[in-house]
């Protein structure tokens, strides 16, 4: 209980720090953005009104407080490139990114866990060598290049899908999922390779422990030892690693959305950066950062659930 309370407090504090840093980072932007937006011919009153609307008045702390309270009410300001509220831009694009991340994550688990266990079981044998060849290759391919290869192979050569023919989830959910499989695969494979490698070495380390030898000497069979005892322990370090992988999956979608022209947050972020649309950049960065912090918190919670030793400490 004390552990949980402490973690919740840390979570709140970290979120505050992250939001403050996100806010501060975009305060160093040179020039007066109100003047930039209205041009030099604007009247004094117009500039003053926009400065107020863009939250440019007052000292840093005052502005941060105002910004934070606006963020809580869902008011993120107006996008300078689209001239519409940032919140509606984000809401429109969020589902695509969430679906991409969820599908990628499922692929990561489905690909890494069974093959990781298999490789660890047959350590040093042919199967393990083949899997290790694929993990090395998988880890070396940047997701966006894999995306290009997938487009080429499944899109242009095999014609399983038409590249660029994205359909929104509201229009036709089946077709949407059918299209999303490919970007999700491109995003997932390199990360699945990393998780696989990590899981394999974690299982192998556990298999050398004394408790495994004891279990074997008592006449237990290999499979029950593996599934009942070893896996539970082997997953503990993997859990932290998976937390990092989720963060990576979110960041990876920035490039993947570009490859498959998906209208998600990542694509919006890249557009906003090239157009210096700071209101949008700020919110997306805050969103991704907050998600990562929350995921780390969930990982910590899961940790104390599967590893009771943490609770005692």
């Amino acid at each position, binding site marked *: 209980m004390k552990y949980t309370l402490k973690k919740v407090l840390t979570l709140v504090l970290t979120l505050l720090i992250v939001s403050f840093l996100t806010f501060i980072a975009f305060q160093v932007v040179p020039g007066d953005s109100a003047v930039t937006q209205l041009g030099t011919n604007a009247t004094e009153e117009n500039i003053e009104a926009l400065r107020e609307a863009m939250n440019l008045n007052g000292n840093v702390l005052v502005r941060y407080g105002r910004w934070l309270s606006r963020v809580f009410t869902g008011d993120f300001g107006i996008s300078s490139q689209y001239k519409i509220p940032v919140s509606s831009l984000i809401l429109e694009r969020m589902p695509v990114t969430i679906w991409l991340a969820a599908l990628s994550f499922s692929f990561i688990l489905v690909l890494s866990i069974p093959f990781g266990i298999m490789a660890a079981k047959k350590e040093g044998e042919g199967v393990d060598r083949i899997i290790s060849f694929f993990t*090395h290759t998988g880890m070396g*391919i940047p997701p966006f*290049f894999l995306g290009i290869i997938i487009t080429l192979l499944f899109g242009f050569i095999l014609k399983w899908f038409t590249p660029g023919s994205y359909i929104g989830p509201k229009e036709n959910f089946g077709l949407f999922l059918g299209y999303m499989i490919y970007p999700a695969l491109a995003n997932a494979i390199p990360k699945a390779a990393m998780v696989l490698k990590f899981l394999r070495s974690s299982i192998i380390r556990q298999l050398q422990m004394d408790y495994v030898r004891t279990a074997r000497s008592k006449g237990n069979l290999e499979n029950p030892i593996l599934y009942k005892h070893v896996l539970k322990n082997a997953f503990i370090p993997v859990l932290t690693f998976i937390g990092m992988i989720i963060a990576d999956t979110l960041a990876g979608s920035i490039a993947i959305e570009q490859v498959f022209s998906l209208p998600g947050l990542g694509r919006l972020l890249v557009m906003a950066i090239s157009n210096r649309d700071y209101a949008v950049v700020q919110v997306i960065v805050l969103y991704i950062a907050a998600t990562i912090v929350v995921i780390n918190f969930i990982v910590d919670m899961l940790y104390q659930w599967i590893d009771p030793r943490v609770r005692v400490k």
Partner: protein
Amino acid sequence: MKNKKINNLNFKIGISIISLVLLFIIIGLFYTPYDPNAMDGTAKNMAPGFTHLFGTDNFGRDVLSRVMEGGRTTFFVALLTVAIGAFFGTLVGAFTGYYGGWLDEILMRINDGVASFPSILLALIVVSLIGPGKYNVIIALGIIFIPSFARVVRSEYITLKERDFVKNAKLMGASDLRIMFVHILPNTKAILLSSLTIGFNNAVLAEAGMSYLQLGVQPPDPSLGRMLSEAQSYMFMSPWCAIFPGIMIVLSVIGFSLINER
């Protein structure tokens, strides 16, 4: 025993791949078959053949020459990035690990915070503030790589400072700075070397990703990531424009990760 043999093999394959990639880049320093930026209207989208080994792109530029140049840019960015990260990371890690105390606590908390964010996201934030371009990417990635080096070096210093050779040096009257950089630093060589190769790989991937998003290296500098993003729009016609620069990235990353397996 068996395992050692496999790792040795990995190491050899890794070294061979990296030598190949480096050879390619070094030749590119002195000689490229064509001018990488020269456009030839009569030779657009040519498939790989004897006149253009890797084919030509939409503007009739020679892909082989561009891969050689682009590989050089990518390696240049990655090397400087890792150099910045390793230099400042080692300094921070050495001081915090050796002295400990409240400064160490604060710096490590910040470190943990930064480390939990994907480097490409952080680099994009920095680039959105200072603008794209080759040197800005180096600065952005360099700063972001500092924490990972600092963390590794710090943990080495924490264990090494308790060792007898350090106590011995202290008794001999060596100054703190001398102990930190003459006595302890050489002992972190092994772990530092492996962080360097991992860091180099991450830098190659991050640079390629940012240039792919057109927020990294800007034309006329050719870069592998940029080539990939340009190749995508006419990929059906000339897939080789995407495949060769991509393979270049993949080979160098796999090469270094195999070396690191040892």
